[in-house]
């Protein structure tokens, strides 16, 4: 059974169709990268998958359960109550801009959702959070506030915060785009280490070498459609004109 299935998704903003009939699938432990030029609909795709955006057509399934769909009359439907909650609890999202809570300490950023939303005992939550921070190399920053962290540190905290809720699939929305070039390395290293743990990941990124190296599956999107799709080697060696144009621009 697939972890996530998106079927024939469409999405328009003000009459402009940014996602045109896209389907994709993510299996347990699989790493999927979505690459493509700016404005190709990659991030919107991710926001639809995490239910931050509604969809205009299609269906989204998590763990074999339908969690978003469009009725024949055009209205979009989420399941009610517990079923929606369950769907939400299977995924986490790491934002481009981290979106840490500035009024919470690093530790509380991680612990508060565990205690408040997952009802974990506080002591247990703190222990888990400290373990995660240690794995991120940030154990000494537990009492710091987000404003005292570098971009790379902030993003690592955000990753720890997402991991703490034990998601089965973790989405990354251009996780290194807001960082200075010298800080991207530390974040990519952390993401790589997660792949070894066999957590499923969906990564929207501009880091081509990184995507090539880490992905089981790669999707190249352009103008709201999947242009090329396949294993890492297949995609990066494909002879697609649009892809060539895209890589050509990246090199300059």
């Amino acid at each position, binding site marked *: 059974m697939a972890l996530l299935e998106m079927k024939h998704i469409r999405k328009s903003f003000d009459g402009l169709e940014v996602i045109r009939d896209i389907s994709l699938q993510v299996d347990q432990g699989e790493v999927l990268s979505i690459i493509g030029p700016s404005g190709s609909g990659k991030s919107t795709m991710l926001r639809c998958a995490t239910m931050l955006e509604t969809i205009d057509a299609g269906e989204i399934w998590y763990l074999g359960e339908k969690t978003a769909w469009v009725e024949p009359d055009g209205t979009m439907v989420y399941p009610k109550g517990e079923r929606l909650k369950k769907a939400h609890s299977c995924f986490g999202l790491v934002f481009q801009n981290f979106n840490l809570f500035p009024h919470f300490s690093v530790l509380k950023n991680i612990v508060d*959702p565990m205690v408040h*939303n997952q009802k974990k005992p506080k002591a247990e939550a703190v222990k888990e959070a400290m373990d995660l921070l240690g794995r991120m190399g940030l154990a000494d920053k537990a009492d710091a506030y987000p404003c005292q962290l570098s971009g790379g540190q902030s993003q690592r905290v955000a990753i720890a915060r997402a991991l703490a809720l034990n998601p089965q699939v973790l989405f990354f929305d251009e996780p290194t785009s807001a960082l200075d070039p010298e800080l991207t390395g530390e974040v990519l290293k952390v993401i790589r280490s997660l792949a070894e743990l066999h957590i499923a990941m969906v990564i929207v990124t501009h880091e081509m070498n990184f995507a090539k190296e880490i992905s089981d599956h790669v999707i190249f999107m352009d103008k709201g459609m999947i242009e090329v799709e396949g294993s890492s080697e297949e995609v990066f060696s494909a002879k697609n004109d649009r892809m060539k144009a895209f890589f050509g621009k990246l090199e300059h």
Partner: protein
Amino acid sequence: MSFQVMMQQLGSGLLRSIHIFALTLLFSLPLGLLVSFGRMSKNRIIRSIVWIYISVMRGTPLMLQLLAVYFGPFYIGGLKLGTMWRFTAIIIAFSVNYAAYFAEIYRSGIESMPPGQYEAARILGYSRTSTFFRIILPQVIKRILPSVTNEVITLVKDTSLAFSLAYAEMFTIAKQIAAKETSFMPFLAAALFYYVFNAIVAFGMERIEKSLNYYT
């Protein structure tokens, strides 16, 4: 009248002023939050009603509102006003007036919050209510505190308007003593009382601001 009696009288007036001040804040701060929700409501009717309410409250003198709240039930509704109504009317008029100002301050603070905070909270499983009270409101409070301080200090001075409903707060007492003594001294004393009152309020607000300075 001896200096001591004058100070005692002004002091009792000050207590009445503080009474108005404290009750007004107690009611208008939460009410303002509620009004700001109405102002930002998706329902067009609620939004318009609240818009009208805010514009009337900010567009007419507080003294007029005091008279309207106090005498309105009698002259419009033909209802007899009990003895308790005088003070109640003052607190209602002040609270309803200040809630309008606070609502606009809350609104500006809430609207200045980046959408990413809501999105992160949603992904992390916070309900809408917890998102607001745990994530958004604490940050909003920090952002709006300087504007709130301004209003609170204005409120200290506005308490003297309660005289239009014959409520003997400090400024009224000062005027009465001044009339009796044919002297301006009581006004000086009253000014000093107001200044000290405001200095304490400003100090308290500054302490709160500082206590929120641990993050930016």
